[in-house]
């Protein structure tokens, strides 16, 4: 290693490059002992990040990223060696390949188990957040590979709940919302299966950030209100259904967070005729059913004006279907929705009876978690 570091720091440029390649090879080892053997090189790898040779910097970044993943001892050394300011300086690079490598290295650093206490605060205190968001802005300069890396970086930061309010003041909700619209547009045009790699972290960030905005820490202008987001989300849900059904829960999670406290977004679901498409997702899986039903409850609980648009319609029939599911949670959520529907739209209870609703309820009378609600609904239906 001593020899390798000597070559890495020699003034023979080509030897330096080859030494860096050797280190990069070593960094792929899955043994943390090998990563730790590379410790003597890290101060130089960081120093070279402020250089200008883009291929070399890219190599150093991938090497650092790999070493970071493998060993906590490496991370413990890199932080006092100034990795965060070094990465922050790199983010100004005009080279797309460097930015992608930087995003990779940063995402590995942010994923470390000690990140919320030891790493994320200094990242948030640097200029990285603003630059990350700039690199996520849709437009002609958006590079997909770069955006993927930084979207994941942002996800690791937001789900750690360290200081999401700061991100919101930098316009994260607005940027990510616009990016979501852009993604939906791209999906419409190409159906490229790679787009979900970017969609996934964007959905996660938006969902988690929305919970911050609601706390009222943020001014009106920073909130997400654009109805196009709902349209975009459904276009992505349709895309997921065809290409990556495992991401449907993530998309529906966002839909829940958009609709839970927002009469406006609930109204959009109705005015854009999205209830029926939502119901088409029910058969996918129990997790998806549960989320769909939760979103529908979000709409129904807003009162009669909303339930008027839920019945007459395909909803009741779908609920009779979900009552036949064996999953207790799905059935439970169906019961919650029925309660809201019967409360705000009593005529629906009558139709329910006529469609053999009571029989559908009966099968769950003995289920401990469900029986109280089943009985309550039976009473309501009978008295309607």
């Amino acid at each position, binding site marked *: 290693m001593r020899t390798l570091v000597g*070559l890495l720091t*020699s*003034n023979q*440029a080509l030897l330096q490059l080859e030494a860096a390649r050797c280190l990069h090879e070593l960094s792929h080892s899955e043994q943390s002992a090998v990563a730790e053997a590379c410790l003597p090189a890290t101060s*130089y790898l960081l*120093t070279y990040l*402020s250089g*200008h*040779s*883009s*291929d*070399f910097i890219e190599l150093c970044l*991938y090497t650092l990223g*790999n070493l970071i993943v493998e060993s906590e001892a490496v991370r413990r050394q890199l932080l*006092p*060696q100034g990795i*965060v*300011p*070094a990465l922050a300086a790199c983010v100004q690079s005009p080279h797309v390949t460097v930015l992608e490598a930087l995003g*990779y290295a940063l995402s590995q650093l942010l994923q470390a188990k000690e990140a919320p206490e030891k790493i994320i605060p200094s990242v948030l205190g640097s200029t990285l957040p603003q630059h990350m968001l700039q690199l996520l802005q849709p437009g002609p300069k958006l590079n997909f590979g770069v955006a*993927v890396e930084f979207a994941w970086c942002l996800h690791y930061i937001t*789900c750690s709940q360290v200081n999401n309010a700061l991100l919101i003041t930098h316009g994260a909700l607005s940027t990510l919302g616009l990016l979501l*619209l852009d993604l939906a*547009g791209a999906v419409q045009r190409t159906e490229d299966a790679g787009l979900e*790699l970017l969609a996934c972290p964007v959905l*996660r960030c938006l*969902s*988690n950030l*929305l*919970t911050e905005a609601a706390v009222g820490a943020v001014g009106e202008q920073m909130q997400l*209100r654009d*109805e*196009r987001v709902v*349209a975009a989300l459904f*276009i992505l849900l*349709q895309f997921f259904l065809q290409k*990556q059904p495992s*991401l449907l*829960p*993530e998309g529906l999670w966002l839909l829940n967070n958009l609709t*839970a406290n927002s009469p*406006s977004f*609930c*109204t*959009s679901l109705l005015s854009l005729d*999205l209830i029926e*498409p939502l119901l*088409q997702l029910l058969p996918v899986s129990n997790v998806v059913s549960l989320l769909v039903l939760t979103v529908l*409850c979000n709409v129904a*609980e*807003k*009162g*009669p*004006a909303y339930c008027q648009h839920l019945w007459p319609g395909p909803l009741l029939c779908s609920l009779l279907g979900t009552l036949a599911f064996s999953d207790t949670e799905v059935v439970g959520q169906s*019961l919650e929705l029925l*309660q*809201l529907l019967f409360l*705000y739209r009593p005529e629906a209870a009558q139709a329910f009876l006529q469609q053999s609703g009571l029989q559908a309820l009966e099968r769950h009378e003995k289920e401990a978690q469900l029986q109280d*609600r089943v009985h*309550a609904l039976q009473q309501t239906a009978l008295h309607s």
Partner: protein
Amino acid sequence: MQLPPAVHARLAGGPGAAEPLPVERSPKAGAVPFRFTARQVRFPREHEFFEDGDVQRHLYLQDVLTQVAGAPERPRVPEFTCQVAGCCQVFDALEDYEHHYHTLHRNVCSFCKRAFPSGHLLDIHILEWHDSLFQILSERQNMYQCLVEGCTEKFKTSKDRKDHLVRRHLYPADFRFDKPKKNMSPATPRATVQVSAEALGAEGEQVEGDAMEVCSEPAGERHTAGRRIPPTICFGQGASRGFKSTKKRNKHQ
């Protein structure tokens, strides 16, 4: 999943929020035995909800990293020579030339011709080695700045700075870009191997493996195809070693 055409049209339209329908809740909604409350949900790190998406991310990265690791076939071009005055290095790939240029010719001190990996280190070098005002000021105030970007500490002496680099920033004691200023004496055939004080590790262990230490090359020294070892690399005790003459010398007593 069929989407109504209004959805696509809406996406293409302008920003705006829907005028909300009136909200009117009954206290019976979600009342016992029911329990529904509309609420936003947040998922923390490591939640199993993220498992599927995380797996896809991992697979994507494996692909990317494999591509990066596989040395790409760098396009060869007809051989050309570095155009910097006095440098004769020859190249047949542009990436090699780019790295050579940035390493040897870009951040070069115009006083002593040493090359540095970054503008930042070059600036510090010029200040500390070639600025006489610096010497004067450093007698009264801490002028030796920490080399780590983001650290604003300054020190009275180069040694103090080194101690800081080692203790606070876990830098190696023989960090190549923090050599203390050498005493400027006219060219002497002295040893130029840098097995010197700062190369000694914390335990006083001599770093002999650094024999490959390259003395800073004056830019423009002879370099042909990188094969010949430049004369400025010195092994052992000095360039002046040569054959001992077999002739008897006159010994003065």
